[in-house]
């Protein structure tokens, strides 16, 4: 997923460090700082859960691809064997991109074959993936 956690933190620094022109101070800067504050809070969640969710998602997609390989092609096994070089988020994301492309291709093949049970398995996985990646915005009161 993009932007990455490092992008967000780097961006928060740049957003605050670069001087704003005089007409962009006041309400605009107040609003900007509020958004930066929210991003920092969400970044904390990503720091806590981001690696774990990616490790889980990569394993879940790999398992689904392996399970489907006997019907939808042995080349899925090679995709399923994609492993991250280390546990850093960039490495996990690189592996995730390969696995997700494999998943997209498999889902298209499943739809073309009218394979409803496997289609539902993939849809269920989508729900789990989205849940694992969720960011929880605090219910802020209206200003």
């Amino acid at each position, binding site marked *: 997923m993009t*932007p990455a956690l490092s992008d967000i933190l780097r961006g928060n620094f740049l957003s605050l460090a670069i001087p704003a022109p005089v*007409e962009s101070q006041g309400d605009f800067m107040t609003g900007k700082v509020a958004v930066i504050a929210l*991003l920092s809070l969400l970044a904390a969640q990503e720091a806590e859960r981001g690696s774990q969710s990616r490790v889980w998602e990569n394993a879940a997609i790999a398992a689904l691809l392996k399970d489907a390989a006997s019907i939808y092609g042995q080349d899925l096994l090679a995709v399923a064997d994609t492993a991250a070089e280390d546990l850093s988020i960039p490495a996990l994301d690189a592996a995730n991109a390969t696995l997700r*492309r494999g998943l997209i291709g498999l889902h298209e093949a499943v739809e073309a074959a009218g394979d409803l049970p496997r289609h539902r398995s993939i849809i269920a996985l989508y729900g789990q993936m989205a849940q694992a990646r969720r960011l929880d915005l605090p219910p*802020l009161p209206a200003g």
Partner: protein
Amino acid sequence: MSLQQGLETYLTGLWGAPTTVSNLARIPGGASRETYRFDSLVDGRSRGLILRRDPPGGLLETDRRLEFLAFKTVHGHVPVPEAIALEESDAALERPFFLMERVDGGVVPSPFVVLPYGDHAQALGEQFFATLGRLAALSHEGTPFREAAAEPALDECWRVALDHWSAVIEADELHPQPIVRAAIRHLRRNPPPPAQRISIVHGDYRTGNFMHDGQGAILAILDWEMAHLGDPLEDLGWACDPLWNHFDDTRVGGMIAPDQALAIWEAASGLTVDPAALAWWSLFNAVKGQAIWTSAAKAYRDGGFTDPVLAISGWYTARRHDLILAERLAALEAF
């Protein structure tokens, strides 16, 4: 030349009289345009104005001319500020821009706060959906909007919209997104019924894009930068998207019960809501949202990570829409 000096020179030429500008300040107002408020003084008369200027890099490549013509067209039918001038060259203010009257005395709550409308939620919800219904009923024939807006056929609205937004995802995606791609394929396999009529579609009609007076009255519908001609159910589906519900699953836009919203819209538009058609447009709008957030993530990166609004759009809202899409896909019976 400063922005203030540029505005003074431009307005002096526009109005044919010496004009001064004061109280120039940028305000939060969407990621696709830089928005400024200021006061102009000409012939002893002060006018509060809004400047909407193209950014160096924005959320979407939207058409400022369409936005300007939308303001001109709906003014008098829908609460919007009066459009003043459109400048499509870079000469005056370095980038193209347009000017409109400023509406004072209102508030525009963030879409991500709880209970933004307090005791006035019901009244605002009724106006919000009645206004959207009136927009759906408004004839676009012979209006300024038709100078720039293409009119799709009734049975092509869905395809035009889906082609446009899926192309945005294709162009801007930086990481594979299987959930939204599954939704796009479903939408193509299961097209909706033809539109009942072709209407002016606001394109981003939602809570957070209207100004109210804090006493239960809507003062202005804002941000027409994605306006186009199409199926009016597109706006209805977007307005009802769970992303905009202010953490309240029982009320659309945090304002009004869904069945009330649809009934008010039907009464004002003279159209009926086909549940199957609205379901298609609701799923489509989650795709459209994901396309916007995908574009935001790319713009955030391309712009050097300096616009936090693009960051939160490309990150938090993208993940919210993945959740919404996954839930909607799971609820479908067929492929």
